[in-house]
């Protein structure tokens, strides 16, 4: 764990923060969703960008952070979803992940917190990124 992530872990973390995991590979989705739940987050899961938008628009659901794969089946990929979130829910933050190096530059323009997370990623790195985003949001 990096020095910065250790510092961020020391901050009080709301157990009710809600993460939407968007990933079309079910075993990856299962692992990251379960890990985030064990870390105390409330987690919703979506198989595609289309499913993600349905959850995001549900009146009883309030998502703080969308954690989405870039390459997904369906008409919209992770970049499209990130643009949609930015346009329609600007208070919701997005973390993108991808196995493709070419996606990094585009992702940097969509995610204020920095470039996308490359696959394969460690589950703890995802938690660190979420805490980093939360800490950044608190400063503004």
């Amino acid at each position, binding site marked *: 764990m990096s020095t910065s992530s250790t510092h961020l872990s020391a901050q009080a973390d709301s157990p009710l923060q809600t993460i939407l995991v968007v990933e079309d590979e079910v075993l990856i989705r*299962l692992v990251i969703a*379960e890990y985030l739940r064990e870390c105390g987050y409330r987690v*919703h*899961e979506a*198989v595609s960008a289309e499913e993600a938008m349905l959850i995001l628009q549900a009146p009883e*659901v309030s998502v703080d952070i969308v954690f989405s794969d870039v390459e997904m089946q369906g008409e919209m990929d992770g970049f499209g979803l990130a643009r949609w979130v930015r346009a329609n829910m600007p208070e919701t933050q997005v973390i993108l992940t991808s196995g493709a190096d070419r996606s990094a530059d585009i992702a940097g323009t969509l995610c204020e917190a920095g470039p996308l997370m490359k696959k394969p990623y460690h589950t703890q790195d995802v938690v660190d990124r979420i805490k980093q985003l939360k800490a950044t949001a608190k400063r503004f």
Partner: protein
Amino acid sequence: MGRHHVVRLLVASGARMSAASVTVLPRRIPPTILVVEGDVRIRYRVSDELRAWGFKVLEAGSAPEALTVLDAVQVDLLFLALDLPGTGGGWDVVHHIRERPTKMIVTSRETGPSDSPGPFVRKPYQAGEVAALAARSLNWPPPTQA
């Protein structure tokens, strides 16, 4: 979780049977339920309810996803929508796991099939109704008893 069950067993005593109380050790590991539902709005609602009852819940949005999970993870109960997208719908899952007996609750917008592989819940349903059915099937206490 501090959950436990008191089970009354009939114990042979000579030629007669007598009742004995046995306290089973607290069950610390929640049963795992795989929810297989193509409509994400239904899937997250019923999954959230099952989690509120203390179950560990895995989610799959299609028959291929369900089969991938079932090959990788041991589940205690399958909550399966028979009206999944695709030609075979949820029946693809039923046929593939025929060799390995799995507790199952099935659901659909259609009426229940005569050869239903488990208890049937017709859509639309209350998520709590499914959670109660799952709890009975898995001998798991409702949240108020936790």
